[in-house]
């Protein structure tokens, strides 16, 4: 590898948005169009990958539950190795790269190898789910705050460092990422911390695909439904008083 090759290398962590290719930003499209290599997770990337050049190398590093996938360290290694060859690398991340995406490990790896990293923000799945429901996440005097939390540890269990008091905050709308398996357990803990069982809740499944489905109800009914009959697709779970209008219907 010559010095000049490496100096041409470029790494961009690009937010792919919630899965609907129409919700890519123009900047994300431009980075994809200029990329030599695209590292992507499996979930709903096909539409975004259509913006890559024909000659670009498209590499799946997907992390789908229950399937063997390269470890995080391996993804970081690949990303840096291609950049060192002078390639323009796009690491495509679903939603936005700075939240629940372990981007920090990739950024650290890039910095250690002497590469700066460009981050292209994306539409987070949480607000896209809100758009799909037609429910604003904040509402005057009702929901002053929005909070994003993941209910899925690497182990597949509910993380044990959740601040349940904050998650039971009646003045917030809470968006739970990757929570379909653990939400019933989370709901029990929230009730114990004072959250009303009647709190409106909605689940948006497989957002941005043709199979998008919605479950509406209360935290209690939604948790029960997820336990009895867990949906197949990825789920975004929203709860809080701001959802009252859409969940009542």
């Amino acid at each position, binding site marked *: 590898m010559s010095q000049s090759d490496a100096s041409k290398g470029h790494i961009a962590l690009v937010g792919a948005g919630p899965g609907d290719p129409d919700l890519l930003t123009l900047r994300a499209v431009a980075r994809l169009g200029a990329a030599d290599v695209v590292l992507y997770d499996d979930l709903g990337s096909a539409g975004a990958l259509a913006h890559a050049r024909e000659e670009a190398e498209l590499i799946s590093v997907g992390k789908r539950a229950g399937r063997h996938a390269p470890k995080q360290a391996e993804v970081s290694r690949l990303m840096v190795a291609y950049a060192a060859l002078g390639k323009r690398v796009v690491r495509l991340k679903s939603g936005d790269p700075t939240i629940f995406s372990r981007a920090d490990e990739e950024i650290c790896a890039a910095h250690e190898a002497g590469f700066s990293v460009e981050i292209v*923000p994306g539409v987070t799945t949480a607000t896209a789910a809100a758009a799909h429901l037609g429910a604003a996440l904040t509402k005057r005097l009702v929901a002053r705050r929005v909070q994003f939390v993941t209910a899925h540890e690497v182990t597949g269990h509910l993380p044990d460092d959740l601040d349940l008091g904050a998650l039971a905050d009646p003045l917030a709308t809470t968006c739970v990422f990757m929570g379909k398996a653990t939400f019933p357990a989370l709901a029990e803990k929230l009730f114990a911390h004072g959250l009303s069982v009647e709190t409106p809740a909605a689940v948006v499944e497989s957002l941005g695909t043709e199979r998008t489905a919605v479950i509406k109800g209360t935290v209690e009914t939604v948790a029960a439904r997820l336990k009895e009959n867990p949906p197949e697709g990825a789920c975004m779970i929203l709860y809080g008083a701001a959802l009252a209008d859409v969940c009542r219907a």
Partner: protein
Amino acid sequence: MPRFRYFPVSFDVAAKTVLVVGDGEAALQKLRLLARTQARLVLCATAPTPTLLAFVTEQGIRHAASEPTADLVREAALLFVATGDPVRDRWLAALARKFGVPVNVVDRTELCDFATPAIVDRAPLSIAIATDGHAPVLAQLVRAKIEALLPPAFGRLGALAESVRDTVLDSLPDNAARRRFWRALFNGRAAVAALAGEVERARVIALKSLSDAQTSPVRSGKVFLVGAGPGAEDLLTLRAHRVLLEADVIVHDALVPEALVAMGRRDATRIAVGKRKGNHTMHQEEIDLLLVSLAREGRQVVRLKAGDPMVFGRAGEEIAALRAAGIDHEVVPGVSATFAAAAEAAIPLTLRGVASHLVLATGHAAGGAEPDGWEALAASGATVAVHMGRSVAANVSARLIAAGLASSTPVAAIENAGRDGRRLFAGTLADLPALAARSEVDGPVLILIGPAVAHGDLTNAEPFRPSQCAVSAAA
């Protein structure tokens, strides 16, 4: 902002004389371009090259083997000079100017009245690409990209429109109705047929949908609540970009930069309902009514909001009003300012073992009458993003410390995240109040608070308190 030296217009040359003077390759290039028009072309060439002569013969272009006469120049609608001889160039340009005939002299900008852009030819659709004469090669690159984007058959859509244009004008006198018809036409089955070369079938489908449009009552328009993202034009989503281009009316907040509002159609109506720090120019109820009445007039409305419309955008009230009035509406999510701010400094908003959740809050609750519940914001392992930042910085800091957050908690503040003029500040929660006093920080500021902030790239961050040397430099 640079201004254009050349203003692009389309010149009607049908059945008019366009005169080209020159013997060689440059004259041939101009003729090749002009041969695609409906102009009557005349070449004056005393010693044409064989290729040039072959071209004019093949194209049936009138050839005069002499210098152009004064009469010929006077009759011309446009004159192209490509003699390559400085003296003749200047003489011909002067002659043209004397008769008021616009003239273009190849490679002599100082003698030109107009320039010829690079052209993508999808007749009747033409796309001109100009660089104010600075970078013709760039224009060619752009041209190649656009050509790749539009299949050669694309012009058939223009031909289809042309074939039904008069009927449409007669049948649909209302401007908005016509626009709806055209939009449906270019996105519908007629367009598919036209692109496939089935010209007659395309025309039949178009006329059928025209008569449908005539008999159906005035349909209500549709309102799109669109997230404009943090402000940079290229952080719009593809969908937001498209609905913005199609909107009849753009109703926007003051926080949305002018460049984004300008991306809409030239003839779209733009209504600023701007809210800027306590300066509410239109009440929310008035905005709700405005959206409903515009849609009832049958207009396609884009309600453009900074960031994402579902977060602190009061979209809920607008949606409720539209729902109550039975108006078709759709929400187009956008990139929230929080994420643009985090991207600027590579700050992980959540981080395993450090921050398991992210809270978005506004600074307004710090001063206003609304219930706040800052205890919940001081949650362990949270990253707190405070929108509408600088003026409330002191209050936010005091309330969070009172609620139990360590005064040493890392904080970053990003002014103008995701748009021009971005600035990054960093320090601790105890330092944050200094930011409130910095009146030169007058763009939108987003404040990120929490242990994960320290994992960002803050090497180029300024401290919250202006440094001594900055103060003395300003003095």
